[in-house]
């Protein structure tokens, strides 16, 4: 079995973001960039499946400008066998990403596609669902547990939903998107970082894959959210109960 994992380069989760003065977006120049945490979890899951003997190869895919190769190298250092970089100058909307992924799936024929449930920059939470639709594959989104049965060609997926934990059984090939509690991603060790340098990365452009990149969304502006002003520090439980009752009128 071959597993394909999509990884995205985003502003590191620990960085406090700054909005550009012209309100055109969020500053990404001279800011620490990392692999999207949900994508790390997706890759970790693929590597675990491979290590359990159920998969032979893990292919990591990324899209975006040339520096996205860094993210791909991180994925290779974690343990992916090879990488694919689809070079695109502009930000791609999830629908375009899904269309490019579909072409890559047609080239690579993986039986499982694992993605993060969302990227922590645009918080869209769309790409996995969209690629599943375009391929006509079943989807298991927001997964916190994945069990593969190679004989029956199914994946049993626990999903974190509002009502609790939902368990689905999906025919393979399938798309899975990862939630936070699926696993704990590994760190790349120094020897593996060195090894990753010689792993192959294949480059494509959307044109080569015959995907027309269009966007039906335009960013008008990006602004600061309204700040909540800090309130008062109280000295006792009695004072708190009094405030809640007689000032805020909430109890």
């Amino acid at each position, binding site marked *: 079995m071959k597993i394909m994992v999509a990884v995205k380069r985003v*502003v590191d989760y620990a960085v*406090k*973001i700054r*909005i550009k003065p012209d309100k055109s977006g969020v500053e990404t120049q001279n800011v620490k960039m990392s692999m999207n945490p949900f994508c790390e979890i997706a890759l970790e899951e693929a590597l675990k499946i491979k290590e359990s003997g159920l998969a032979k190869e893990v292919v990591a895919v990324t899209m975006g400008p040339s520096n996205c190769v860094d993210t791909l190298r991180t994925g290779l250092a974690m343990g992916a066998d090879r990488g694919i970089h689809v070079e695109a100058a502009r930000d791609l909307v*999830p*629908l375009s990403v899904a269309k490019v992924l579909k072409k890559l799936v047609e080239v690579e024929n993986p039986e499982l596609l694992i993605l993060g*449930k*969302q990227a922590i920059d*645009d*918080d869209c*939470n*769309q790409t996995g*669902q*969209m*690629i*599943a*639709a375009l391929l*006509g*594959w*079943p*989807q*298991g*989104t927001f997964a*916190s547990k994945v069990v593969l049965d190679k004989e029956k060609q199914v994946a049993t997926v626990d999903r*974190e*939903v*509002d*009502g*609790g*934990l*939902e*368990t*689905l*059984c*999906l*025919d393979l090939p399938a798309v899975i998107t990862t939630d*936070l*509690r699926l696993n704990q991603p590994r760190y790349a060790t120094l020897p593996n970082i060195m090894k990753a340098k010689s792993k192959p990365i294949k480059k494509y452009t959307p044109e080569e894959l015959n995907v027309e990149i269009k*966007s*039906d*969304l*335009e960013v*008008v*502006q*990006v*602004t*600061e*959210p309204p700040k909540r002003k*800090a*309130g*008062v*520090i*109280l000295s006792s*439980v009695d004072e708190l*109960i009094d*405030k*809640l009752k007689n000032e*805020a009128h*909430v*109890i």
Partner: protein
Amino acid sequence: ASTLVLAEHEGGSIKAQSLSAVVAANSLSQDNPVSLLLAGSGSSLHQAAEKAATCHPSISQVLVADSEKFAYPLAEPWAKLIQLVQLKGDYSHVIATSDSFGKNILPRAAALLDVSPVTDVVDINGPHQFIRPIYAGNALCTVQYTGANPCMLTVRSTSFPVPHISVDSKSGAASISEVDLSTLDEGPFTWILGLQLESIPCLEAIILTLIADSVGKSRFMKLSSQDTGRPDLGSAKIVVTGGRALKSAENFKMIEKLAEKLGAAVGATRAAVDAGFVPNELQVGQTGKIVAPELYMAFGVSGAIQHLAGMKDSKIIVAVNKDSDAPIFQVADYGLVGDLFEVIPELLEKLPEKK
């Protein structure tokens, strides 16, 4: 303009958050009849449809899809259903709530319809301009939709509160109609070609083998949830939340006791869920639930940005934490620096019994 709202129902009623999507539809434009789409099977579906027909004046039509395929919220048949209903009704907008149901299904349907959806809309500037949080709510992005119909949105129910509406059930009843599901299992070419395939059985067989259909490739196994009898976290007026500082599942019961006393829902931080104190459905935050109750009480919660993203629209925020530098105090209306193991018992003793 006309809007299709994807609604959820439970126990013969439509869920409150689904009405938020109707409220959002109302703010798209003045003249905007809403068709409410309900799917499921059995008598509770039809009961919900009857109630939905009179629950909001701007609902002009209730569409009912009755099939065993919709007994569970599986994305594959649901996305197909939306595609089918959209191709027939040519709506300008399709709206669902930003919960695990809407977020699972709507993007899938959007891909089938070849449009880009907009996730987590918190404000509407016009029929095609929306505001949504990005970077865990640390920035707000205004986006203009320039694509073809339908414009598809998931909306945060906390941003579109449902006002109490008195509906004249005699004049305000919407029509109820059944969705024709005979083409649900067929591929999109069926409609594109406009052929009556029933009359050409072999052609139908050919087309069906050409189009791999995903309906039936996923099966619902079970839903594990804890029925606590407490109010729903997403819609409760008061939420009491505990963080890692509770130290154990046993200690977390103090939070539950306090919630019971206040008639509140229980929430938790990611750290508390990860540590196994409580199940995942109680997580409040960027990747958990987004809540905006009238009163949010946080105990032993440090205030990571991912958690703040899930609760900072609450009307009154109370924070109790030992660490006076905890970021949660920067958003709290009332802060109490102290040990929650002393504060909670005192609150339990001194708070008035709920009416």
